[in-house]
């Protein structure tokens, strides 16, 4: 498959595809982070996670319009407002869903899966009724347009760089909250021993609600970032949900570092192969490899050996 390319051309191809892969990586990581918190820490499968992401994307879309019409002077920075709003919108909806649905199903993971699938269908239809079936895009402020030329043949788009920087920041914050802050200790305590955590004075119901809210909120931010690199439609979330679950499972559900590493591997493999094979075959091969590896090593790549 490398026939007809010179060595320097191959180098550029790998670099450019590698960069395209990094953007895919960012989307995966942002989506998977929220999912990893909810699935890894709470053991809940949230099939509506993609829709929480798309909610964030639509919030950003609405925000870009409102700011563009009513406060054009704010436009260069609207994105940060939109991101905060997306976090609040998805996060509070997540808490509402936890309170009305998820908390009754903690012991029935398969049923949670079906119920959240139902939720995802309802959310999709709400999006469709509100924003129409067509995909929408946001207008980027000027400073995010264009690209940087590294060499004659290698160019990187600025919005991609921005999304990546955003991804790293958010991952660092999530890591700090879960593993360095007192609140994160509470979350992990509840997940490891619910009864005991309750006995030492942790409000387990509240921890559950906020954890679920946090996961959904991060999905909202992911959606916000997603608008920078792609357009948004009512069913865009569903396109990513299976890939993201594979990312989380492949990384070992309990490990955030594992999630990031597996997002990196999968996105790089897919985008590099995409150049040489057709897009669909690249995806088939990537997913097939991941599923194959998961069959051989079901616990994922990063996991501790513990007594069952």
């Amino acid at each position, binding site marked *: 498959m490398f026939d007809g390319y010179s060595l320097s051309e191959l180098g550029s191809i790998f670099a450019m595809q590698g960069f395209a892969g990094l953007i895919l990586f960012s989307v995966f990581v942002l989506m998977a982070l929220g999912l990893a918190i909810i699935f890894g820490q709470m053991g809940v*499968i949230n099939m509506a996670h993609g829709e929480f992401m798309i909610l964030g994307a639509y919030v950003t879309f609405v925000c870009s319009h409102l700011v563009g019409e009513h406060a054009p002077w704010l436009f260069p920075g609207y994105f940060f407002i939109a991101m905060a709003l997306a976090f609040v919108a998805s996060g509070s909806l997540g808490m509402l869903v936890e309170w009305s649905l998820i908390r009754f199903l903690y012991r029935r993971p398969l*049923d949670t899966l*079906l*119920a959240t699938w139902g*939720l995802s269908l309802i959310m*999709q*239809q709400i999006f469709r009724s509100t924003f129409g079936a067509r995909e929408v895009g946001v207008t980027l402020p000027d400073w995010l347009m264009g690209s940087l030329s590294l060499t004659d043949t290698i160019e990187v788009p600025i919005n991609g760089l921005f999304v990546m920087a955003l991804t790293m920041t958010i991952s660092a914050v999530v890591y700090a909250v879960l593993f360095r802050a007192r609140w994160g200790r509470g979350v992990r305590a509840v997940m490891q021993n619910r009864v005991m955590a309750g006995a030492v004075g942790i409000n387990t119901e509240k921890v559950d609600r906020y954890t679920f809210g946090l996961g959904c909120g991060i999905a909202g931010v992911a959606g916000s970032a997603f608008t920078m690199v792609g357009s948004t439609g009512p069913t865009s979330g569903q396109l990513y949900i*299976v890939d993201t679950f594979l990312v989380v499972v492949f990384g070992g559900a309990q490990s955030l570092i594992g999630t990031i590493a597996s997002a990196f591997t999968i996105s790089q493999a897919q985008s590099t192969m995409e150049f040489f094979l057709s897009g669909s075959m690249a995806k088939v091969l990537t997913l097939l490899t991941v599923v194959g590896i*998961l069959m051989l090593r079901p616990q994922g790549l990063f996991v501790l050996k513990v007594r069952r």
Partner: protein
Amino acid sequence: MTRSFLTGTRGELLGVGVLALLVLLVLPLSLDVFRLNLVGKYLTYAFVAVGLVLCWGSAGILSLGQGIFFGLGGYCMAMFLKLEASNPEATKIQSTPGIPDFMDWNQLTSLPWFWEPFHSLTFSLAAVVLVPSALAFVIGVAMFKRRVGGVYFAIITQAIAAILTILIVGQQGYTGGINGITDLRTLKGWDIRTDEAKLVLYFVNAALLLGCILLCLAVRRSKLGRILVALRDKEDRVRFSGYDVANFKTFVFCLAAALAGVGGAMFTLQVGFMSPSFVGIVPSIELVIYCAVGGRLSLLGAVYGTLLVNWAKTSFSESFPELWLFAMGALFIGVVMAFPNGLAGLFQTHVVPRLDRLRGRGLPPVPGPTRMAAE
């Protein structure tokens, strides 16, 4: 503990009798050929739902990839019918006569090797059952031997459904792509598109379904059926009672896959085409909801659930298409939150006691064990 006259072998056979009466007599007498053909299509999904009752309800293995097996069965049948429809006479305007039209459009000049055996009807019919169960066997052995279950299994099967869809859509020249395999005409020279053929196929389908239900009832009444229930409850205890648990799970998964394959083949025959839109994530999870609405523990309930949901889907889509997704979403949530045993559970708690009273026995309802509330 009191028992209703509707439990036990007699109750189950009575239930199958009532269903047989409905699908073989009442529906054919009251519906026109078009509607009856629609019911026939729904009943092909019921094969999958019945398999899910064994796999998910009895053994606790939720597969979100039953569309894979339904599709494989359907494609095996469609490949045979397509080859018959693509005889050199009918395809003489193509640049390569004698191969299916979509291959010709995709610049294929000869039949791919894996299409060759589908010239034989015997081979194709065997493949309808064997291809899905062989794939299920591979997946089952790989996963169950390594103790993968629950949500992990569900997600992996879902991923496989996604992969297969992308593959079918991407490999147009070999599979017909997104349109699927269409324009199927005859089965060994017998035109399957006439009203008369549709009527015959409806009865073949209904009879096959009843046969499969009886088969599943027999499996459930065997010791294997009780082992499956035991597995769902205390897997380790079964393992430490000397059973190789993975084999039992693989068996029931393969059985469900084979049933789905038969359903898929009957779908192809009755509807006249097969496409990737019956393979992927969305159709696969819809198949689960048919089973859940009917009652995940009840083989007969699954059939009624399938009929009801599909009837609702058709009527909704005719009058308020935008409301259907809301209804479907609410159905998923409602069935999980409020009616975990579906229609069969409602029947068991509300109808059965009345029927018992009508028979003059005056027995109080069976207390508590709704989890076993089956036929």
